[in-house]
């Protein structure tokens, strides 16, 4: 049915995308969820296995305390209710699952509710987060390496029993960008609290997307499809948009969207329905009789709170607070400052900005220098002496250095460290006095009379040319803003 429909490109006018994400994160424990085997990526196959994680007859699981600690930390970080939880068995046959059931929290998960704030200030609701065991890894042999057409498969149980925390969002996401931003933000939180190494490429973070579409203005949700195999933020964005577009095409063709699980094929850029097994949806959940409930006590919650550092959203809020200091206007979270704040926090450089501001740097300037220049070399930037950087910002703000000169000094600071004033002096960097700038402007006007005439006649776009000439003539010593001020003054006099 849907095969005959031409899939449009997202966005489609008049339609809205609705997505909720299920993020599976491997917890950074030393051992697996129910046994003492190493939780490690990339080891020789089947070397991290024991009677428990192989599901050998007679073996029994014992819950890893650290997995509970980490889950509680994530719960605290997301503002969830961390509560008494129970493991169930999810029964289905698959060779990567040694017991042919997965031990997973079902209707009594450890974390319930909460939310996460995206850099642009939008809050995404969290439904729940629950602990479960990972499966082993299956390699398909023959065919093209896909499960389809393979002659046989090989199973490695090193990953079987690795602790996973599955974090389920509300269907609050409305675009591919938001979906990516959500995962990036969640990843930052998981890394910040020490729950995960966040390595998507190693499968530490795996994302399934529940996607539906509806006409703009509709209040009810459309039928959703679950899209699996999203191994990168890029895949996630592409898959969400493609799936939304596919569903719109189906609906426009008069069809209905079937609730199903679909597989993202990165190379083909499309989702395909997974062949449904007849019994696929009867998991026969029942309480895992080999385990007892987990009831977080006050001490656990206290430890979790203490272990949660300042999170990205709060760090961004702090920077926005610095930016708006003195003014009563909340700076726009979208747009240039918002992007700079997000970038600075994402590269873990917000402390540099805040420290510089404390030492007298102008907030917007410090933010811009860190976001635009220092963030390009995050490792060096994190080693930067805060006082030196603040001093540099003060010099620039005072007009002692032009922007270009300040960037040059910052480059030296990042590479070698030192005192900005000494660096500037040693390299002969000093902003030109006002009279000198006017000299250069007169000289450029004389050399380019035609452009100068157009400028005086009111042509805005020629300003860039003129400023550039002045900068060149002055060897970068002229400050761009100062040059522009002289140009404006000349025109207003003309």
């Amino acid at each position: 049915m849907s095969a005959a429909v031409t899939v449009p490109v997202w966005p489609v006018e008049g339609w809205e995308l609705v997505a909720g994400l299920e993020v599976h994160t491997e917890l950074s424990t030393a051992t697996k969820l129910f046994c003492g085997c190493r939780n490690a990526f990339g080891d020789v196959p089947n070397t991290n296995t024991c009677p428990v994680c192989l599901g050998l007859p007679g073996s029994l699981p014992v819950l890893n305390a650290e997995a509970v600690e980490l889950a509680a930390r994530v719960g605290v970080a997301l503002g969830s209710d961390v509560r008494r939880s129970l493991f169930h068995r999810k029964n289905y046959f698959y060779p990567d699952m040694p017991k042919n059931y997965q031990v997973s929290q079902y209707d009594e998960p450890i974390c319930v509710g909460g939310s996460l704030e995206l850099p642009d200030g939008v809050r995404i609701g969290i439904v729940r987060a629950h602990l479960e065991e990972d499966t082993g890894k299956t390699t398909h042999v023959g065919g093209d390496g896909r499960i389809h057409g393979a002659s046989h498969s090989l199973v490695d149980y090193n990953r079987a029993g690795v602790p996973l925390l599955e974090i389920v969002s509300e269907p609050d996401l409305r675009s591919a960008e938001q979906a990516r931003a959500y995962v990036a933000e969640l990843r930052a939180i998981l890394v910040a609290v020490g729950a995960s190494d966040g390595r998507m490429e190693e499968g530490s973070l795996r994302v399934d997307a529940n996607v539906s579409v509806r006409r703009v203005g509709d209040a009810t949700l459309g039928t959703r499809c679950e899209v699996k195999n999203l191994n990168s933020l890029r895949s996630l964005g592409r898959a969400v948009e493609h799936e939304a577009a596919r569903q719109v095409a189906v609906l426009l063709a008069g069809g209905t969207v079937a609730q199903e699980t679909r597989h993202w094929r990165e190379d083909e850029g499309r989702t395909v329905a997974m062949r449904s097994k007849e019994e696929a949806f009867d998991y026969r959940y029942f309480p895992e009789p080999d385990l007892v409930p987990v009831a977080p006590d006050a001490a656990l919650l206290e430890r979790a709170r203490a272990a949660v550092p300042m999170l990205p959203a709060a760090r961004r809020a702090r920077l926005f607070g610095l930016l708006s200091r003195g003014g009563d206007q909340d700076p726009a979270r979208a747009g240039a400052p918002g992007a700079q704040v997000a970038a600075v926090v994402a590269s873990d450089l917000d402390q540099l900005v805040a420290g510089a501001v404390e030492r007298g740097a102008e907030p917007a300037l410090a933010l811009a220098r860190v976001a635009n220049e220092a963030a390009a070399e995050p490792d060096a930037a994190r080693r930067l002496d805060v006082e030196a950087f603040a001093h540099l910002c003060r010099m620039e703000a005072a007009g002692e250095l032009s922007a270009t000169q300040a960037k040059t000094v910052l480059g030296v600071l990042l590479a070698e460290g030192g005192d900005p004033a000494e660096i500037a002096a040693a390299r002969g960097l000093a902003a030109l006095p006002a009279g000198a700038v006017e000299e250069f402007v007169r000289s450029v006007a004389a050399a380019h009379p035609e452009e100068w005439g157009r400028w005086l006649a009111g042509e805005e776009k020629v300003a860039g040319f003129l400023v550039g000439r002045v900068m060149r003539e002055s060897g970068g010593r002229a400050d761009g803003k100062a040059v522009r001020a002289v140009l404006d003054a000349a025109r207003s006099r003309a």
Partner: protein
Amino acid sequence: MADERAGTSGAVGPGGTDGGTGAAGLHAGAVGIAQAVRRGELRAQDVLEEHLAVVEAREPALHCFLALDVERARASAAALDEAVARGEAVGALAGVPVVLKDNLCVPGLPATCGSRILEGWVPPYEATVAARLRKAGALLVGKTNLDEFAMGSSTEHSAFGATANPHDPERVPGGSSGGSAAAVAAGMAPIGLGSDTGGSIRQPAALCGVVGVKPTYGLVSRYGLIAFASSLDQIGPLTATVADAALALEVIAGADPADSTCLDRPAPVLGPVLGRGVEGLRVGVVGDLVEGADREVAAAVAAAADRLAGAGAKVDEVAIPACRYGLPAYYLLAPAEASSNLARYDGVRYGLRVEGEDVAAMNAATRAAGFGREVRRRIMLGTFALSAGYYDAYYGQAQRVRTLMIQAFADAYQRFDVLLGATTPGVAFHQGEKLADPLSMYLSDVFTVPSNLTGQPALSVPFGTGESGLPVGVQVLAPALGEEVLFQVGSSLEAMAPRGGADGAAGQGTGQEAGGAAGQGTGGR
């Protein structure tokens, strides 16, 4: 046949070895053997050889074992004797031959669970109970027969052939721990371990005329017990005497970090309660745990109640009508858990594989070929009970009934220290008698399942023989963690059990001498 029975009846060893080199070995029970070995009065090697001789003589007719571990047992016995000679301290079960039901894991020995699906699988790890027995100086003689995956009440559902009842080879030893029960009854070892999910220790103990104990759920680690129904399974001893059962339980019980459901408390100390008497104890005779039993069984329970009253116990009748829901609830819960526990036998990692076109076909062919009929039946039943649309009516409802039963027994324990009932509805039945009708086989468990559902401990102690001349057991139930009072009453019943008497030869040998309560009597007759 009469000779046969005379030679094998009862928990005491065959008379043929009387007067042999180490007569004390066979007749002192585990308590006496361990004491004598510790003191250097008896060599573990002699004890072992005597029991091996019984194995050799009786095993062909009884088929108690799925595997023997003679060489390692001999090596252990020799090492133990050397240790004693050097004056080293040895354990509480020094030199005591033991047998383990073949659903317990021991490295180097196959663990089959009586199933083709596990044929040839050798566990690379040791069950906690096996390790504790070994460390206590016990000598593992072998692994005993059972109904496949412990599902059955006759040991006929073993893929490797049935076990015969030592009292009458035409009859079943009960099950599922029939191999251990028969081995102990035949004198092959003083202690056998079994597992009890719905009566699988107590029922064969009753049918074979030995003592069988299902401890409080969580008292004994299940690590290394191949699961049938995890929330019901519990390991316990089958022994010739109550004192031996107490000793065995003291050794195997206690906290184990490898089993999340094992209680964090030390093993009970039971020696002091043995022979303490029942003066002033409140004993409730549960009509619902006798109703429907054969006349000879009901008579034994009544006699037991009378004698307890005569010994000073306050005996009264008590009704626990919720018992009637026990068996149906059990036959929903246990298969449901089993259907999940047995999903791992799929031909991928160990055991049998029957090839198939694709992995699902391979799984399905392997499981159909590897599981016997009864196991397939229960997997089907349990899968259905958990399936969408039926969970609430069957599995969910059975869990609620479980709550009702716990409440009903808690109420009864407000008024009574222990409860008394029958262990089984009848004495040992004939081989094949109940095979054709699963439900009639399931009814064998009707008096034993309540304590599995509630988690409370219970024991079956031989109490004479019925009109048929076959052993009859009575069951004592106690509140959770009430092992002390359970054994106190059990040892009294053992001491007051009828022996000899009107039923002639068939009546001999059930229970020890009165002094057997202390487990130190030597010379059984």
